[in-house]
């Protein structure tokens, strides 16, 4: 590999070294001094800043032996000018649940990556993976072998189960209504085969949030969003509510009046909640975490079908199972998931997300196929159009067809 020492001139990118927010240009430049890939990335990026277009080409298929995903193939459209990024593939490493690390583990990844790649990373990609940004095809196998020997594996890309991800959950959040870290680990391990080898019509994402605050934005971007909720009453410490009031919280206007279901009242001494009306929005609990906690009977709501606009328009996930207990070995959840995958495999078209398939066949048909009872929690409102496809009607006795 050419190891030129001549500095790349980058008058445009230099402007992005200024200012207070930490600069990605500085990050690239520091590597460019000792890594030819980073140096050519810098040069090509400057070229894009000049031309106002990307200089990457659509990736061909590239990967490690036996895997159908985990590497995003990327090629420069100007390999003559930037030979060290002629290939510049990205490797997705499956992050640990909740993005918890030790310095030792991170250092091991850094050492492999400095030797075999650009030395640049995304911590993290928006799917959740630890992203190693840019290497050549011949380095993929050595990197894979070294990382798996340190206990790491690739994440998903293409028509596979994408790397599941979750919020901080019970590890560091009092609101967690189930163990998001454990469920994420469990599903990731249980479904390694479909994570690494494309067997689906298109991508499938699981995201686990421990409560309706939904810190991993599951409702916006997971095919299956698993959001912790509780069934019984919010736990209230009246003494602590009074302490909040004393410290300046206006419990009436900041808590009760903002409750969307208007189920709270405050008489200056006690906070009363009509729990059967509460829709578990989290506002009061977020605002007074010392005083209020989710109930004790906990589980999760399962929502299905979120996707970005391509192809048929953006969709958020919608309720499929209003409440499910979330305890190992998660059999009820896995049975449901596998049933859905079977249905999707049978009826889904190529590149059709589950949310699009449900739109196409109708939620009613989908529920019937899964043997799930329709429930009012599934809709914002019942239909407003009268175009009902009645499946049954009576016939007169002896009627001629």
């Amino acid at each position, binding site marked *: 590999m050419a190891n030129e020492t001549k500095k790349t001139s980058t008058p445009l990118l230099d402007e992005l070294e200024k200012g207070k927010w930490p600069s990605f240009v500085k990050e690239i430049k520091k590597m460019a001094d000792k890594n030819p890939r980073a140096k050519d990335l810098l040069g090509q990026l400057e070229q894009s800043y000049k031309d106002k277009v990307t200089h990457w080409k659509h990736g061909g298929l590239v990967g490690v032996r036996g895997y159908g995903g985990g590497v995003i193939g990327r090629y420069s459209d100007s390999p003559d000018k930037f030979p060290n990024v002629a290939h510049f593939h990205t490797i997705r490493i499956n992050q640990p649940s909740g993005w918890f690390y030790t310095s030792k583990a991170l250092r091991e990844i850094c050492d492999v990556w400095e030797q075999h790649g650009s030395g640049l990373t995304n911590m993290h990609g*928006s799917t959740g993976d630890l992203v190693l940004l840019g290497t050549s095809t011949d380095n993929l196998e050595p990197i894979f072998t070294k990382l798996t020997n340190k206990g790491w594996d690739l994440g998903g890309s293409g028509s596979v189960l994408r790397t599941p991800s979750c919020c901080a959950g019970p590890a560091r959040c009092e609101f967690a209504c189930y163990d998001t870290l454990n469920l994420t680990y469990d599903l990731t391990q249980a479904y390694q085969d479909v994570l690494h080898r494309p067997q689906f019509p298109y991508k499938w994402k699981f995201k686990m949030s421990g409560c309706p605050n939904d810190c991993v934005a599951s409702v916006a971007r997971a095919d299956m969003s698993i959001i912790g909720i509780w069934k019984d009453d919010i736990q209230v410490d009246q003494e602590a509510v009074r302490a909040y009031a004393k410290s300046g919280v206006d419990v009436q206007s900041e808590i009760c009046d903002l409750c969307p279901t208007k189920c709270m009242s405050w008489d200056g001494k006690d906070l009363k909640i009509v729990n059967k009306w509460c829709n578990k929005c989290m506002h009061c609990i977020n605002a007074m975490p010392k005083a209020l906690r989710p109930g004790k009977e906990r589980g999760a709501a399962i929502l299905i079908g979120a996707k970005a606009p391509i192809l048929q328009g953006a969709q958020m996930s919608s309720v499929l199972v209003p409440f499910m207990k979330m305890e190992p070995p998660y059999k009820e959840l896995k049975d449901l998931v596998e049933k859905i995958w079977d249905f999707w495999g049978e009826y889904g078209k190529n590149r059709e997300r589950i949310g699009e398939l449900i739109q196409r066949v109708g939620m009613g048909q989908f529920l019937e196929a899964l043997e799930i009872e329709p429930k009012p929690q599934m809709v914002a409102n019942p239909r407003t159009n009268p175009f009902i496809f009645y499946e049954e009607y009576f016939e007169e006795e002896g009627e001629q067809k």
Partner: protein
Amino acid sequence: MESVQAEQRRTDIGPPKYDQFLHPVIKKNYGKWKYHEIVKPGVLVHVSDTGDKIYTVRMGSPRLINVDTIRMVCDLADKYCEGYLRFTSRHNVEFLLADQSKIDPLINEIEANGYPVGGTGKSITNIVHTQGWVHCHTPATDASGIVKAVMDELYDYFKTMKLPAKLRIALACCLNMCGAVHCSDIAILGVHRRPPKILPNLNKICEIPTTVAACPTGAIAPAVVDGVQTVEVNEEKCMFCGNCYTMCPAMPLANSLNDGVSIWVGGKVSNARHAPMFSKLAIPYLPNNPPRWPEVVNAVKNIVEVYAKDAKKYERVGEWIERIGWPRFFSMTGIEFTKYHIDDYRFAATTFNTSTHFTL
């Protein structure tokens, strides 16, 4: 290249189990957390039923970081956190401390290294973003550059908690929207405006039926030009998704004259008070003006400032706009309302106002 044959090749091992990466205090109090407080901007304390405490110091990061920066972060974790740390869903680094007295020395070292501490509570935290010109083939704009320029301008909002509520910004560099930009308080979205070109060698590198099928609006049809099989694009039907280019490299969409940025507002994902909402169009087009995109920076800053002044406590951007109404949003921000703001795709009619509920 060094040989790795000595090491055995293993597959399908999955990620390492999380419990080996948990700080001992977290392990001991797993699932027992009672409440948390924001000690000051960028610092949280979580208190357990057992009385134990874990402190979190949140550090902003550009997301694209090199191995030496990761090692710097590791050094700090070793010095102050027994080697334990985590990352957040918005690319921040979180240091986990058992010892309260180490917080300020840690913050001093982080800031001396050029990284900010903040992003908690009623602040603007890090911008979730995608690859842009650094690594993707379909972007209409760069990601990291705009994020840097916008965060430079909004830096004080990261370091303080003076907004009515938290404000989440996200950026995606094309309509594929890798990242949940469509449910953000403010979304910055790269847009192509000119339908794809058709290169003369199309029949040599693309399969025509799959290229035709790639288009969600049915804008692509097979065609014969000068006796050669190719495709044609019905430009009126094209909504610039780039899906054809993903399938067929002979249909490039990137265009330096026309590509740019749109701005969307009022989305959210949490259920607090109001149900999750999509972001809605505020500005249909701003030019790509690298390296610092001043038009985009000013547009975002303007929306933030108008919101910060007018919204009530706890109101997210979308809740604020719902209360004041879209006419007021446009008049207060001075943003021009155009025909592009009125939906003309599927289900457009569901976005029309069918009431006399509006301000004049």
